[in-house]
C-alpha cells in the first residue's frame, strides 16, 4: 500500500473512532483519545526541542560561548524547574518559577494596560461634537451597554430600585452578547465537522469507490 494512502486510511479510521463516542463510549474511542494525547505531547516536545531549545540555547552556547554565556542563566532556570520532581529538592523549583512568573507579569502588565484597557476606554469616550446620527446612536448604545453591565457586576453595595433596573438592562446586553457568542460557537464547531466529513468523503470514500 502506498504511504499516502495508508496515512489517509489511518486518519479516516481514527476520525471514525473519535466520532463513535457520539453513539456511546467504547474502547476504540478511548484508544484514539489516548493516542491523540500522546502524539500531541510528543509533537510538542519535539517541536520545542528542535525549534526553540536547540537554535536559541544549545547552538549559541556551543558555537560562540564567549558572546552567549549569559544564556546559561535562563538555561539553568529551566533546569531548576524540574527540581520539583526531586523528593527533597522540590523547593528549588519555586525560585525559577517565581522569576518566570515575575517576568511575564512585568511584560504583560504595562502592555495589557496600553493594549487592552486604554484603547477600549478610549473607544467608550467619544466626542459628541460630531453630529452624525449613526455615530451618536452607536456610541450611545455602546456607552449604555458598558455602564449597565458594570452596574450589574457591582456587588459591593446592595442595589436600590434604580440600580436594579439598570442592572436588569445590563442582563439584556449580556444576553445579546452570549447569543452572538453562541451563534459563532455553533458556526465554529460545525466548521470542524465540515472539515472532517470533507476529508472522509472527498479524500477517503470517493477515491475508494473510484470517484475523482
Amino acid at each position: 500500500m502506498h504511504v499516502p494512502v495508508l496515512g489517509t486510511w489511518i486518519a479516516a479510521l481514527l476520525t471514525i473512532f473519535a466520532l463513535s463516542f457520539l453513539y456511546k463510549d467504547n474502547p476504540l474511542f478511548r484508544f484514539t483519545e489516548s493516542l491523540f494525547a500522546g502524539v500531541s505531547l510528543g509533537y510538542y516536545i519535539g517541536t520545542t526541542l528542535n525549534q526553540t531549545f536547540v537554535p536559541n540555547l544549545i547552538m549559541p552556547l556551543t558555537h560562540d560561548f564567549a558572546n552567549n554565556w549569559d544564556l546559561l542563566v535562563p538555561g539553568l532556570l529551566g533546569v531548576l524547574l524540574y527540581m520539583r520532581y526531586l523528593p527533597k529538592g522540590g523547593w528549588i523549583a519555586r525560585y525559577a518559577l517565581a522569576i518566570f512568573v515575575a517576568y511575564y507579569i512585568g511584560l504583560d502588565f504595562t502592555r495589557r494596560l496600553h493594549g487592552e484597557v486604554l484603547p477600549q476606554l478610549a473607544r467608550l469616550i467619544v466626542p459628541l461634537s460630531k453630529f452624525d446620527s449613526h455615530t451618536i446612536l452607536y456610541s450611545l448604545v455602546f456607552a449604555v451597554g458598558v455602564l449597565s453591565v458594570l452596574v450589574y457586576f457591582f456587588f459591593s453595595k446592595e442595589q436600590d430600585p434604580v440600580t436594579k433596573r439598570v442592572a436588569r438592562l445590563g442582563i439584556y446586553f449580556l444576553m445579546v452578547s452570549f447569543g452572538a457568542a453562541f451563534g459563532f460557537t455553533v458556526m465554529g464547531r460545525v466548521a470542524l465537522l465540515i472539515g472532517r466529513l470533507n476529508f472522509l468523503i472527498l479524500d477517503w470514500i470517493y477515491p475508494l469507490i473510484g470517484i475523482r
Partner: protein
Amino acid sequence: MAGLAQKLLGLDRRWLFLLVFLGVATPIILPIGLPVTTTGPTRSAYEFVEALPPGSVVLLSFDYGPSSGPENDPMAEGFLRQCFVKKLPVIVCTLFANGGLTLANNALARVTAEFPGLRYGVDYVNLGYKDGSAAVMRGLDQDFAGPFPADTRGTPIAQIPIMRGIQSVRDVKVVYSVATGVTGEYWITQMHPQSGTPVISGPTAVGAPKYYAYLNAGQLVGMVAGMKGAAEYEKLLAADHPELAQLYRSTRGFTATKGMDAQTVIHFVIILFILIGNIAYLVTKRSGSIHA
C-alpha cells in the same frame, strides 16, 4: 399534541446527531453553490493588503493547530495567494505549539506549488516555531534575530535575502495572525501598542466576538472571522484576480466557499431544532399547568 411534545423532549439525542451528520454530508456530496456576501471587517482586511505596494514585506503567523484547520487553513492560504499575486514577500512564523509548524509547512507547500516562479528566501521564508508568545513578540520588537536566529532550514537570518532591511517587526507592513486561542490576541494587545505595526486577525468563529471589540477600538485594520470570513476573502480574491478565480473554481481541495453550503444547511437545521424544542417545551408546560 402534549404527548407528541413530551416525546420530542425525550428524543434520544443521537437522532439529532444523525440529522446534523446528514445536514453536513449532503451539501458536500451534492454542492448547492449558495452565494457568499462580504462584510466590512473582511473587506477592510482585504483592501488593506491590496493597497500595499509590491515589495512590501508582510508577516503571517500560523497561531493555530489542526483542531481549527478547516476554519483557519483557508484564511492563511487566501492571504498567501493574495501576497504572491501582489508580489508581497511573506515572512512566515508560528507561535502555536501543537501543529502550527506542520500546518505552516503544509500551507506553504500547497500554495507555493501554484506559483512556480517563487523563490524560497526571496519571496517567502519560514522562520518556524518559537515558544513563549508574549516574550517572542517583545523580542521581535527589537530584533528578528533574537527569537528567530535561523529559519526552519537552519539558514542564519542575516543570510536570508528577504530579511535584508527587516530589523524588527516595525519594518513589516502588516502582521496577519491566523489564530485560535490567546496568541492572536497577543499580537493586538502586546505587539501592536509597542511597535505600531498594523494587525489583521483571522480568529476562529468561537473567538470572533471578542475580536470585534478590538476592531471597533481601531486596534485592528481588519478581521477575517471563521469559515464565513475566509469564504468572503476567497470571493474578494476571485473578484479581483482572474487567475485566483480560476484556481478556486477548479481546485479539488477544500475551500471555505465550499464549506459554506454545509454551514447554511446546518444552521437551518439547528434553528429548526431550537424552534421545535421551544414549542415542545411551551406545549408541555401549558398542558402540565392545565392538569395541575
